């Protein structure tokens, strides 16, 4: 794991926001030992800590399922809403109107997103809500003890369910065709990449879809299963190595540029995501190329990971609404109730 850059003047265990890593932690996890979701929670803690994000400046959301329990296990100091199955996007959409300066972090699962919540998943992308949308994808329903999810691959064998007869939903492909402005995939067994992608996603202005293959050690971790650790490790095809560079650390750029072919993606806040391409000279701003790569990966049984697509030019939902600068939830009666004279004006408009 990368160490954060030493910051002048700050004690070694606090970040630039003056907070320790403990300030980002949550309650102890009640998920299974070895669950990929726990690893993701840890990376969320580390990413926010390293980015000096103040926990009170974000809101966290989830739907229902094992994945959706996990917001309890990070960011104790952050407002959170554990909503209904498949309905996290709508809760987040409404809540983020209350303070457009805040960022949302939503955690969902493959059942929560690709089955019951497919509609809201599509529309939250269409609206470009300013949030990181993490799908902790394990291809199985854990809390209800091991039924197939919509992302389970065709032919998968599960103990009680037998063989899965249907084609899987590809979260990233769905995101791409729905005009998501940031689409990435990672693997819980690759914590460095998870963390760097989380940082990039947090810097993105708009919806950032992060599909993280997160093996279920209890119900779906046979070596041949797509969502298992063993399969993931063997089949992972990273598009690139990824580094996130915070806005003021440009000096890093020069060091990294020494190696091979490098592509930089500038984020709205002045930070940079650096992609070191492995083989393909991959351009994540090219939507058609992203689709081609995903299609190719599906045919070849590859698990393509990395930043698949990013578009930093689309306005976010709240920016379209031309809201006052003061967070809406800090407005008072003086701002919200029309003055007395307006009632006569309204009555005059009636017949």
């Amino acid at each position: 794991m990368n160490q954060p850059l030493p910051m002048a003047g700050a004690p070694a265990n606090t970040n630039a926001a003056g907070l320790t890593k403990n300030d980002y932690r949550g309650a102890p996890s009640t998920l299974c030992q070895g669950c990929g979701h726990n690893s993701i929670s840890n990376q969320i803690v580390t990413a926010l800590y390293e980015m000096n994000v103040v926990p009170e400046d974000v809101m966290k959301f989830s739907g229902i399922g094992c994945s959706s329990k996990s917001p309890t296990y990070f960011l104790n100091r952050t407002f959170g809403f554990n909503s209904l199955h498949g309905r996290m996007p709508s809760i987040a959409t409404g809540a983020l109107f209350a303070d457009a300066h805040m960022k949302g972090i939503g955690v969902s699962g493959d059942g929560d997103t690709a089955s019951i919540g497919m509609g809201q998943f599509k529309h939250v992308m269409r609206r470009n809500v300013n949030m990181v949308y993490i799908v902790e994808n394990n291809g199985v329903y854990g809390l209800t003890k091991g039924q197939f999810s919509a992302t389970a691959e065709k032919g998968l064998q599960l103990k009680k369910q037998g063989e899965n007869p249907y084609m899987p939903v590809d979260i990233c492909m769905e995101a791409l065709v729905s005009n998501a402005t940031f689409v990435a995939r990672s693997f819980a067994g690759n914590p460095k990449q998870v963390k760097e992608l989380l940082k990039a996603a947090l810097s993105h202005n708009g919806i950032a879809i992060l599909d993280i293959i997160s093996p279920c050690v209890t119900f779906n971790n046979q070596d041949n299963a797509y969502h298992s650790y063993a399969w993931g490790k063997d089949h992972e095809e990273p598009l690139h190595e990824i580094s996130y560079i915070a806005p003021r650390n440009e000096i890093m750029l020069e060091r990294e540029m020494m190696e091979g072919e490098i592509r930089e993606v500038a984020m709205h806040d002045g930070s940079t995501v650096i992609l070191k391409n492995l083989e393909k000279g991959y351009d994540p701003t090219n939507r058609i190329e992203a689709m081609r790569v995903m299609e190719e990966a599906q045919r070849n049984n590859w698990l393509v990971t990395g930043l698949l697509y990013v578009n930093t030019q689309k306005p976010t939902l709240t920016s379209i609404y031309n809201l006052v600068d003061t967070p809406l939830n800090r407005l008072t009666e003086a701002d919200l109730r029309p003055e007395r004279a307006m009632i006569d004006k309204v009555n005059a408009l009636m017949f």
Partner: protein
Amino acid sequence: MNKKVNDFSITVGTKNGSGSSTANNTILRSIFKMGIPVSGKNLFPSNIQGLPTWYTIRANKDGFIARHETNEIVIAMNPNSFARDLASVAPGGAFFYSDDIKQPITRVDVAIYPMPIKAIVKNDPNIPTDFRELVGNMVYVGILAQMIDMDMDAILAALTFHFKGKQKPIDMNFNALKAGADWARENLEKKDPFYLEQMDKTNGMIMADGNTAAAIGSVFGGVQFSAWYPITPASSLAESLNDYLPMLRKREDGKHTYAVVQAEDELAAHGMTIGAGWAGLRSMTSTSGPGLSLMTEFAGLAYYAEVPVVIWDVQRIGPSTGLPTRTSQGDLTFTHFIGHGDSHSVVLLPGDVYECFEFGWKSFDVAEHVQTPIFVLSDLDMGMNQWMSKPFQYPDVPMDRGKVLTEQDLEELKGSWGRYLDKDADGIPYRTLPGNKHPMSAYFTRGTGHDEYAKYTEDSEVYIKNMDRLKRKYYDAAKYVPAPVLHANKKATIGIIAYGSTENAIFEAQHQLVHDHGIESEFMRLRAVPFNDEVTKFIAKYDQVFVVEMNRDGQMHQILLTEYPQFAGKLISVAYQDGLPAAAKWVREGILAKYESGKQKKAAVKKTAPKAKPASKPKKAAVTTKVAKKPVKKSAVKSKTSAKSKKK
């Protein structure tokens, strides 16, 4: 022939989508402008173009403006409903029809007026060809105006309003109308007794529909967020927000203090509404029964998570294609119990367009004060039809934002607080809002599985305690909701309980019950569930309390039975629903069918233990005895609104 002045109904039968609504609204508004109490109801099918549709107007000098079940004047413009329209004219009534409809006239007991509408329009060189059908509707207005003495200045005022002062359409429509009037003056001989005469009974009043009123009320209530999904008959409520917010909440910097989002479905609409309400916005959605069905799971969550939101349900019949354009009071028990488990929602019941406005702003105060979803039940009749109303009045109390802790509050509390802690012993806890920068401000929101500090728990004792608090909070909400309106009558021997848009029908039925049957009644119009003590006292007063409502099963009756088991023997359900706005006829007949003349008001002995009803049928003969002939004016029935409505 004796003149019948300012006391008749006019029904226009047209084809849906033929553009007759301008014409019909012109008739309605002109009568209103003449100072005559009037109502107009659009009885339309679920269809964009082609199916028969009716618009029924009632003018009544005494103020009885509920839909009338007899049509003194019928205007037939649709060949497909011609026979039915002709049959619907009351004996001695008048029948106007477009003379291009060649169908047999089978009535000799009504005045028949053929109207050469097409010829009149064709002869007017000022009407462009493609406007002929649309403007043709104005010709029947002109003919009618001439025949019943509708005032031309009033008509011009109505058209000027409708076309927002734009001279070209005003002239084109008014000229067509005058052409109709001129033709009638020269060619028709008056054979019916119906006339309009100027009055002063609508002075100072306005006309509006309930959806517009609700939207304007919400704007004055400081609405900040609305998410909605199109559905008849609620769509125009959200659309009106979009109409009035930019004007009423305009700022110099051009920025917005609100957002209205059209969601992908009602699930998302309600989710967004709850997200916004949770995060501290005055948040609302508007829908109808089928949409509410989709919102149910979220409604339950909001109840348990104690999120303030306002949900307008403009009731209709449904689901699916089941009479979606017909009015109803069918969602009462649904909203009352909405959500799974032991949920009890606060329901507000506006009774007219003014109350749609008033509850528009009040509902936010109640929601934020009680921290619970507030359901406001309007209906299609109130929501979409133009009603006479007193002018909207500026809210008389400041906004009540409820118990919200700021950074400073938390500083003073040294961060010690619990989201679900009943600190004030009123069942209503304190909350904080996202964006609060105090390190102890945040909490995690879930359904029922939480302790007083919002930590996850499945502990039985904690669960029970929380559920008991929610129940207490619900019943205490009776203090904050609009109190019932009592139309007192000292001579009354029976009580009538009703709610919502049926009020006009009940006033008229009360009048008929006295006039034709000698039965004096006192009427309490409920404006919210849960009930306060006034309701208890009212029911206690009478041996027979008729609960009148527009649904099949007597939903308010059911709720009253549950809340007042001690009164079960005297609460009598008069429930009826045919999809049409309430009429006095079914109210009167419904009450008479179950009325027992033997029961008297006092009978203090009976008070404690209500007995089973006597087996004998109500004696019709006893109730038909005519008493004092003197008509009881509406003004004789004193209205008294309790001032106890909302106090902090």
